[in-house]
């Protein structure tokens, strides 16, 4: 689905998030900017510690202590117009939550309250946000929601521990869609599941999106998942966004050395056999980041400038018309990128 032409629904600019305070603060997200458009699926990929979850939770102000938002804005184009989520007070946020932006957390077992039935956990959102609904209508709606994800109505009376892992995740999705929000943030929703269930759930998600038209911010460390699912992908490293491009373009023609490294780390099912390359070194300690570009110690194309100059997320200088950006000095004026990072789409292939 091509969501590129539609209007933005969530504009994050210059977001910086710290853990802790003062000189010992850890910069978990550094000057991140992203735009999510109506109906689009934006995949946010990166290793653990890259800041992807932090970013998503910070935007919704759900980040736990000791997280603090130290810079940036999150402009949400909701039903009441454009609002900066960081300017809202508690009551405004509360109203907005779930009805316009909802979240599917990582572990469904821990996200469902063990002492309440599924029915109660589905209906209490309705109670809080759709005050005009009566008891029977709420129950009906809850049954509809379960049906939407392929679960029978009698499960309304079940407790979370009585459901299988896949069912619980489906319940979480149904719950997230209860108020038909515009944005759905999904934090590694399928990581804890087996591949078969994973597939089913992603498929159902696709169908639901077709029907309801919400945008998705899909967080994962597994780039391969995003192949079919995402419209656009943003790759994060050490709290920064290092590349942002339409999904297929990113896969075939990466522009950032880290992305290239990631893509080379997992095998494709078809095509010629290539040697798998990992990325040398290990993820950086956020308390002790390298100077300049945080990736330079592990980068095969590092130049001298990389050690002193931190690159910004910019459109590629030599293909400015493309709707993509990367934060790498190789693509700035005065430098020459290597061939592997300059691949162009083959003529005649669909993008």
């Amino acid at each position: 689905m091509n969501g590129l032409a539609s209007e933005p629904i969530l504009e994050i600019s210059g977001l910086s998030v710290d853990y802790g305070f003062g000189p010992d603060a850890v910069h978990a997200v550094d000057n991140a900017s992203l735009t999510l458009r109506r109906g689009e699926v934006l995949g946010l990929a990166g290793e653990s510690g890259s800041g992807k979850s932090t970013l998503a939770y910070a935007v919704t102000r759900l980040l736990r202590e000791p997280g603090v938002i130290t810079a940036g804005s999150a402009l949400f184009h909701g039903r009441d117009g454009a609002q900066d989520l960081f300017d809202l007070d508690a009551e405004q946020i509360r109203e907005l939550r779930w009805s316009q932006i909802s979240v599917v957390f990582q572990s469904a077992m821990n996200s469902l309250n063990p002492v309440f039935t599924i029915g109660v956990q589905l209906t209490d959102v309705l109670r809080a946000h759709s005050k005009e609904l009566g008891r029977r209508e709420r129950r009906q709606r809850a049954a509809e929601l379960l049906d939407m994800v392929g679960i029978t109505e009698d499960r309304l009376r079940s407790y979370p521990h009585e459901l299988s892992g896949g069912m619980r995740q489906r319940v979480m999705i149904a719950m997230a869609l209860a108020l038909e929000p515009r944005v759905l943030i999904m934090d590694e929703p399928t990581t804890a599941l087996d591949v078969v269930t994973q597939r089913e759930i992603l498929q159902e998600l696709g169908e639901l999106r077709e029907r309801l038209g919400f945008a998705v911010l899909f967080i994962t460390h597994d780039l391969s998942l995003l192949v079919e699912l995402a419209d656009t992908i943003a790759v994060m490293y050490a709290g920064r966004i290092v590349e942002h491009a339409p999904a297929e373009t990113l896969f075939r023609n990466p522009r950032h050395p880290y992305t290239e490294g990631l893509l080379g780390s997992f095998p494709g099912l078809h095509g010629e056999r290539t040697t798998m390359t990992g990325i040398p070194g290990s993820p950086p300690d956020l308390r002790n980041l390298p100077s300049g570009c945080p990736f330079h110690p592990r980068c095969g194309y590092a130049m001298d400038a990389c050690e002193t100059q931190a690159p910004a997320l910019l459109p590629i200088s030599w293909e400015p018309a493309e709707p993509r950006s990367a934060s790498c000095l190789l693509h700035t004026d005065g430098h020459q990128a290597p061939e592997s990072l300059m691949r162009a789409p083959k003529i005649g292939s669909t993008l």
Partner: protein
Amino acid sequence: MRILRNRKTLAGLILLAVFVFLAVFGPTLAPYPALQIAGKPWLGPSSAHWFGTTQEGYDVWSQFLSGDRAILVVSFLSGVIATVLSVIIGVAAGYFGGLADNFLSMLANIFLVLPALPFLIVINSYLPAGGKSSTALMAGIISLTGWAWGARVLRSQTLSLRKRDFVDAAGIVGERSWRIITFEIVPNLVPVVASSFLFTTLYAMGTYVALTFVGAVDVNTPWSWGSMLFWAQGDQAAASGAWVWFAAPGVAVALLGTSLALLNFGIDEFINPRLKAAGLTRRGLRAAGVTRRSTLGLTPVLRPTAAVVVTSPAEIIEETV
């Protein structure tokens, strides 16, 4: 040690030190023996008798000074015995499992459910006079009702430790059971045992004072604050306005208990760091101009605006209270 930095632990330790001092030197410092007529009865506090006198004319201050030793001796002795028992029983139950566990757990549960004070009163009522005045015997009997709670906690800790890989590894290598227990498991239990010891001692103290107050043990030998309370109650000190007579021992017992509880708090927070009021401190936030506390579900925003510039606060002290 890091524990000592905790304000609560420090306060508890200092307070306890005072009481230990009192136990050791109290009787020697007392101007009169506890049960010797020192003046006219029912005297109020004065320079001759700092705490006044009792109905029989005994010096309350002397009685007070002599009242700490027996309590500390019985409490700590009982705490030690009960803790040793709870370690043996709890660790054995958790480590060996099976029938032994079932039996020992049932034993512990029985002692937990049995109401302790009535039980002790009944036991004591059968003791001959010599038994009722023996501190050692008292400590032993009280520890009978005090070991069960610690045993339960240690059992569950042992159970979870046992499942850990390093214990399995020791077994595979061929370590004997008793060695595994002593060298792998027990060292990890030390904080829990410490906390259990303090709690049990606190319990023993309360129980001993209660038993004396009630007259289930010999109220004059050994002399303790419980004895003072017994006589104060019996002679209607409160009704007669001699409030120092009953207030002094009562407050002392409360303070002694508080010192043990404070120590315990400190250890609890050491075991479970989440209990500390940690995270962003109010001071730090206020320094940055954020007036609202960081509540769950509302991440604070500290963007530099024209009015407020975020400067790093001078010190960040993790609030450990």
